[in-house]
Structures are given as C-alpha cells and as structure tokens.
C-alpha cells in the first residue's frame, strides 16, 4: 500500500480507551479510523477450548518482561473481551496517593468526587450492575464465608455482566460465547460504527511521524491472522489528531519508537509503569472444614469442589481499603479464577519442599484442583516499571504463533511494593488457616517475576511534566494533537480492578479532545448520549464539560 490515506482522528487500539474515544468523536461528526492490532472475533467464534489457536490464544497476549509479565487483550474490544468485567470505582484515598514522587501524583483536577460523574457515564454505557448473593458463585461465596469467619466483610462486586445470560463456564478469558459479558462489542464499538467509524483489525501501529500540515502520519504493519509473528504489508494514514490506546504495555513503545522523528518525549513515557500491585495466592479448600466450619453445602452433600464453576471474581474483601492506613498497607483481596496453564504453573505447594512449583508434590497438588480457590491481591506498588528500547516491531518479540511474547519492560519491586504483598499474603494465610479451612501459598515470582492483568501508568497523566507523560487533558506533553486514553494514563495502582477507572478517565478526557480536534479544523461536537441513547449520565456530567474544554 503506497498511497497515504487520510482521516480526521486516528485511534490506536479498540479497548476501553480507544472505543470510548472512537464513539464520542464519530458521534460528534468526525471521520474516525481505529487501528487494532488483534483480530476481530465475533461472539460465535468464542470457544471453550485451551487448544493453541483457539479464541483463548487468539485474543490475549502474555508478554514476559524482566521481572514483570503482562496479560492483556489483543483483539477488537481489547481488554474488555478478556476481562472479568469487575467494575468497582477506585477508593477515595487512591486519588490522594503520593507514590514514588513524594507529593500527590494525580492531577489536582481529579479526585473521587470529580470523577464520579464520569464513572456514572460508564455505568450507563456498559451497563454496570450490582450482584446479589444469588449471583455470587460458589467460589465467591466460600471466600465471603471465610472472610466472615474471621470477622471480615466481603462484597459482591459490581460487574458488567448480564448475570441472567451467564452460564458460569469460567471461560471468560476466551471471550464470552453467550453474550453475557458486556464487552465493548455491545456498547461503545457498535455505536461508533453506527456513526461511521471504521475499525481495521490486524493493523499494528509501529510509529508516528509528523505531516507538513501539523498533523501526524501513522505507520502500521498488517499482522497475519493466524501467525502473529508474521507481518505483511505496511501502510500509513494521516490524521489531524491521534489517540493512543494500545494498552499500557504498548502505547509507550509506540511513542518511544516515534521519538527520533517526533522529538523528545516527556520523561514519563515508558516510565512509572505500575502492575496495580498484583499478587496471587492459591488455596486448596479442605472440603470437610468448608462443610463443618463454614456450614457450606451445594445441596448434594458437596461443600465446594467448584473451582471450575463461575465467572472469574464475584466477591472481594475491602476491609484494607481504609484511607487512614499508611500508603502501601492498603489492598483488596478478591476471589478469582484463572484457567489452567496460566493459573496453575506459578502456584506453589503450601508447605511443600523445594522446588515448590514443579516436581512430584506439584503433580499431587494439581489433583486438588477442583478444590482450589485463588485470591487476587491488588495493592499499592511504587510505579517501578521501566520500558527498555523498543523491539523492532510491535511491543515485543513474539515467541509463539499467538499469545506468548518477550517484551522490554523491567520491574524490580521496591520495599514498599514487597511490603504490600507480604502483608496481603499473611492476611490470606490467616483467613484460610483459621480452623483449617484451606492450605494456601502465594504464586512464585521465581519464573517470570511478578505479573499483572492490569498494566497501568506507563504514560500517565499529571500536573508535572517531570513525573508524567500527559497533561490533565491526556495530551502528551510537548506533542500537541497526540492523546493517550488507555490504562497507561492512570497515574498509579488503584487497589481495585481498573477497567472502570480507565473508562471514566477516557470519558472525562473526551470534551477536551473534541475541542482539540475542533481547533485542528475537524467538524465535530461533543455531547453524545450513552451508546444506547440514554442521557441521564450525560446530564449528570454536563456541568463539568466547560472546565475540561477550557484546558485546551
């Protein structure tokens, strides 16, 4: 392809950050093109299968860095197709965090109160619902009962799931076959398409260069639909505005690769990466204790044995989300399910002899898999991740045909991060070992280092260009017309699942981005309703819009 195409707005990535931007700009009248690196997989193609090449390996990536591995979406809809659809708001204290810079790291214009109206927009758009105890799976119920047994509280999570359609197959990471999970394929993306946006799957953006008219030229390669290691044609598209939303593991790499031609990038590009302080513990439930101590029975005499049943997490304990506690001592403990492979290899045998994660004892431990229950810690890390030089293409060197790759991220946890992990490990152990409910051990970090399913902050917003990559309106410092709206923009760990906050920040960024597009000659207006036409959340956030467009 040699002729350069043109569009008003080029969006890189179709997860939360990209889909929300594509929708608002297309609905407002702009010509919008979305380039998505992954395939466009429809509901009927989502499979229940661990076979290499099934939807399970086609739609997400596992990128191993030095000390940190990232799991993320790789498909139209991005993380929303592989996520577990837990949508809590970030606790109030998060916005006051200092992190590694010794002063408030969020922009002065954002706190929980000012973000709530934007959260409301996401609730209306997805929509997000609360679960009652009839919706809570056996695994979530057991975790709640265990927390209660040791004097703790536990909450059914707010979710973007139609629980009536859910079959509790626990194949959420392979995409939802039954249209129960409210991914972006059901709201923002079809609404963007209805307003004329174009989505091109298997287009991997490599870099940006400048055009003579002050816009940007976006350089992409076509990715083979089966073997992602193979890249085909290259092409370019010129745009007046570029919105990067390739995910926190990829957005900074695109900017780094663009630096020789665009000029120096702000310090925060590819620095301050946060893994959301994530950590996992796997327990094997003592079925007798579940019955006798917790009083649980599935109705057929079986107390639990339900690891395979459910939809990822349904219950979290939020007792440690207490703003009066010191920073790095706060975390949530969320019941979770990880499928085999990713969810088993790093699990250590409680009290096992060395090696604890492979060998005969691990083989025997796997025989208790039906009674496993995984607890997910989301804590406050120290934004200690740094991206090294970009690989030749994409954000990694692909190893497997799909899914597995080696990336340039380095992460060496600080004492602060290790503190949160140690305290949460100890608390999970205390809860499970009380009256012999379960045997539990944390996952090993000896194999791939730490890991995260919620990569954040690698191009974060802030008020200070020395410690951020983006201004309060999500524009890259010193590079007018380039915006970032994905998880990279979130300043730091959130102690809860971040999709809701990523989406709310993207919603909040839209009035300013629309204004920037207008200033660059794009005929576009701000003010679209929710994707289904609902308007109550739009009314609720309207009073904030003048302040946001004034920033440009």
């Amino acid at each position, binding site marked *: 392809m040699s002729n350069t195409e043109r569009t008003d707005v080029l969006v890189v990535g179709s997860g939360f950050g990209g889909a929300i931007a594509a929708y608002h700009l297309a609905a407002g009248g702009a010509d919008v093109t979305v380039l998505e690196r992954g395939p466009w997989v429809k509901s009927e193609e989502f499979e229940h299968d661990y*076979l290499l090449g099934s939807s399970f390996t086609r739609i997400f990536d596992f990128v191993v860095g030095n000390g940190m591995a990232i799991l993320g979406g790789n498909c139209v809809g991005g993380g929303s197709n592989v996520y577990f659809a837990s949508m809590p708001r970030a606790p109030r204290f998060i916005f006051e965090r200092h992190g590694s810079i010794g002063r408030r790291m969020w922009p002065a214009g954002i706190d929980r109160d000012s973000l709530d109206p934007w959260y409301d927009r996401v609730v209306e758009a997805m929509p997000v619902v*609360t679960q009652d*105890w009839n919706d*809570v799976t*056996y695994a979530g119920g057991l975790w709640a009962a265990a927390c209660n047994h040791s004097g703790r509280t536990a909450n059914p999570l707010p979710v973007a799931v139609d629980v009536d359609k859910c079959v509790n197959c626990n194949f959420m990471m392979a995409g939802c076959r039954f249209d129960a999970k409210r991914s972006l394929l059901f709201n923002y993306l079809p609404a963007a398409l209805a307003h004329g946006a174009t989505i091109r799957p298997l287009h991997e953006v490599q870099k940006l260069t400048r055009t003579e008219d002050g816009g940007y030229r976006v350089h992409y390669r076509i990715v083979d639909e089966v073997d992602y290691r193979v890249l085909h044609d290259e092409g370019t598209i010129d745009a007046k505005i570029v919105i990067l939303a390739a995910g926190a593991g990829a957005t900074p790499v695109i900017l780094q690769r663009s630096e020789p031609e665009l000029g120096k990038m702000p310090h925060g590009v590819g620095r301050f990466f946060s893994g959301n302080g994530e950590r996992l513990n796997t327990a094997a439930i003592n079925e007798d204790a579940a019955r006798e101590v917790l009083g649980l029975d599935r109705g057929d005499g079986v107390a639990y044995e339900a690891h395979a049943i459910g939809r990822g997490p349904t219950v979290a304990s939020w007792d440690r989300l207490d703003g009066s506690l010191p920073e790095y001592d706060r975390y949530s403990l969320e019941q979770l399910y990880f499928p085999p492979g990713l969810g088993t290899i790093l699990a250590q045998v409680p009290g096992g002899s060395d090696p604890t994660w*492979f060998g005969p004892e691990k083989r025997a431990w796997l025989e208790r*898999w039906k009674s496993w229950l995984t607890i997910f810690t989301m804590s406050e890390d120290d934004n200690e991740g740094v991206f090294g030089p970009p690989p030749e293409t994409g954000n990694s060197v692909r190893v497997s*045909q799909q899914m*597995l790759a080696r990336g340039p991220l380095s992460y060496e946890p600080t004492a602060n991060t290790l503190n949160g992990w140690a305290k949460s490990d100890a608390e999970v152990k205390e809860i499970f070992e009380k009256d012999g409910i379960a045997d539990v051990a944390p996952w090993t970090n000896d194999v791939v280092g730490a890991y995260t399913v919620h990569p954040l902050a690698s191009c974060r917003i802030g008020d200070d260009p020395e410690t951020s990559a983006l201004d309060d309106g999500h524009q890259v410092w010193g590079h007018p017309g380039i915006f970032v709206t994905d998880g990279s923009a979130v300043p730091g760990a959130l102690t809860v699942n971040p999709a809701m906050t990523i989406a709310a920040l993207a919603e909040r960024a839209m009035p300013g981005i629309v204004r920037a597009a207008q200033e660059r000659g794009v005929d576009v207006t701000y003010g679209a309703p929710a994707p289904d036409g609902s308007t109550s959340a739009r009314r609720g956030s309207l009073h904030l819009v003048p302040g946001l467009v004034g920033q440009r």
Partner: protein
Amino acid sequence: MPESEVDARTLTLEAFADTILPGEKRFPGDRSVAGEGKGGGAVAAGAIELLETPATGVTDALDFLSQTLDQKATEWAEEHDLTLDDDVPAFVALPFAERTTLVKTLLSRENPERDGWVLLTMFSNMAFDSAAHMHTADAIAAGHPGLLAMGMTAPDADGYWRFEQHSYRRQLAEPHPDTLPNGSLG
C-alpha cells in the same frame, strides 16, 4: 546410545518434562520417565507432542535445548563425581533428584540463558493441565491424564460448559459498611 539423534532428543525432552510434572513409568525399563509421580505425568499428557507443535515457538529450538541439556548434565555429573551410564542421553541418565536440582539451576532468575528452559517448563506444564495440543473436549473424552487428574468435567453435548447450579444462594458475609448502592465503596 539410542539409534538416532531424534530418539535422543525425545528421550531428553521427556526426561525434562517428567522432572516438571512427574508420572509413573510407562513400561518396565522406562528411563526418561523416572517413576516419581502417581498416574500419568507431563509425558503421558503429551508434552512431546505439544513441544513439537510449531505454534508454540519452541519447536525450532528443541535440538539446541536437548543437546544443551545433555551437555549440562554431563558437566553436572563431572562436577558432582557422578558416573552416568551411556545407554541413554546424559540428562536421562541423571538420577531424578539430580535432574530436579539441575533444572532448578537452569530456571533460576540468576541464569541469563533461562528463557529456553522457561519455555520448556511452561509447555511441559501446559501439556498436563491444559492439553494445549488438543481440543479440550476431545482430550477429556479421550481420558487425558492431566485434565482427568485435575477433575475437569466433560462439557455439554454441544461442546460448551454450563453450570446451572453455581451459587450457595445466601448471604455469607456482611458487606463493607461504606458500600454505596452502586456496589463500590463511598
């Protein structure tokens, strides 16, 4: 030594996979499977078949990895005054405990050349717990030793898993006192 290099490679890789998730010997005189596990282990689960699947990305490296593993085993034996019989490749000849210690060393985060060993480990593991070289439903129907050992159940007739009974259907804890009607904390 075995008759061909292909056999040597397979034996060495089998011994590696068996070190990760050990199984019982498949036949009397099985050397690569040490017999340290009850039931089928990674080898019986199809580790070699999975490693030989080009989609993994590790297949082209198997010659190098198996040869290096045998070389490391030879060096290990020399350093630890072990005499290895030469009926089988060096890594296969190592006693199980020695295999385990060597593999631990290779996988150590201090080893700058660990990537290949991590890949072998991951796919050995996945052969057992995911049967990533087979359709999952087929693997269960065929009595796959890993999936069955873990207690995975068969899907519905159309190949999809559904669990109609999924909840204890009662309140099992008090929610956090700061919980808002929207389900988040205030």
